[in-house]
């Protein structure tokens, strides 16, 4: 239960940010653009979002599933040891290699890992995915710092400019 008064309800993270409505709306527009504009494959975003949440042990982020991303629970279960799993294709492995290091080991990301990501996604894709992973990381930190509730949900998208952020 968050210690922020007024940050409760069906979408507690969105409600917490909503204590500053102008910033919440602009953050929805920024974060939601990943899905609103289809800036990267939905499955790739979902795998990276959930892996970053696992690394943070962020229950509130892990409670959300993007229903349209097509990521099975079997693949989610394999995420913790994705490097040893055969359930992830080459593009997913390139993305997960960066996602794995962004939260706690960002200085260990290598040029070779980025070259692999570039080969799979191109420059625009690399920028979109890097922003996405950074925002997944930031959201976990925000949720944990604000202690927002975990609300299990299968959603059309984790966020949208039309809101809310799940």
């Amino acid at each position: 239960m968050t210690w922020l008064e007024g940050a409760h309800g069906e979408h507690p993270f969105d409600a917490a940010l909503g204590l500053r409505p102008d910033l919440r709306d602009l953050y929805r527009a920024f974060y939601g653009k990943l899905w609103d504009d289809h800036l990267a494959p939905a499955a790739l975003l979902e795998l990276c979002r959930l892996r970053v949440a696992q690394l943070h042990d962020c229950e509130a982020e892990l409670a959300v599933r993007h229903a349209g991303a097509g990521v099975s629970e079997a693949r989610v279960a394999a995420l913790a040891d994705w490097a040893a799993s055969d359930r992830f294709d080459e593009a997913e492995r390139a993305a997960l290699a960066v996602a794995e290091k962004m939260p706690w080991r960002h200085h260990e990301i290598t040029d070779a890992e980025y070259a692999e990501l570039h080969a799979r996604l191109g420059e625009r894709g690399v920028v979109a995915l890097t922003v996405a992973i950074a925002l997944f990381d930031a959201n976990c930190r925000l949720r944990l710092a604000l202690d927002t509730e975990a609300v299990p949900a299968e959603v059309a998208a984790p966020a949208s400019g039309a809101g809310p952020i799940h």
Partner: protein
Amino acid sequence: MSTKPRVGSAVAGEAPSFGTALAHQPGLAGAFGALYGTFWSKGALDHRTKEVTRMRNARVTDCGY
């Protein structure tokens, strides 16, 4: 940390930087600019507090930029 930019500039004639790399995704760049600009130009916190926490965050993450 890399010694060369991993993403090139999307702005002709300008060197790779945070802004010119983000410009590969103009929609994201615009949305980020609106959010970050509002954060700095309005709000409940004074500029001293924002700047102190920004600098401390950069130190903790060892971000020389």
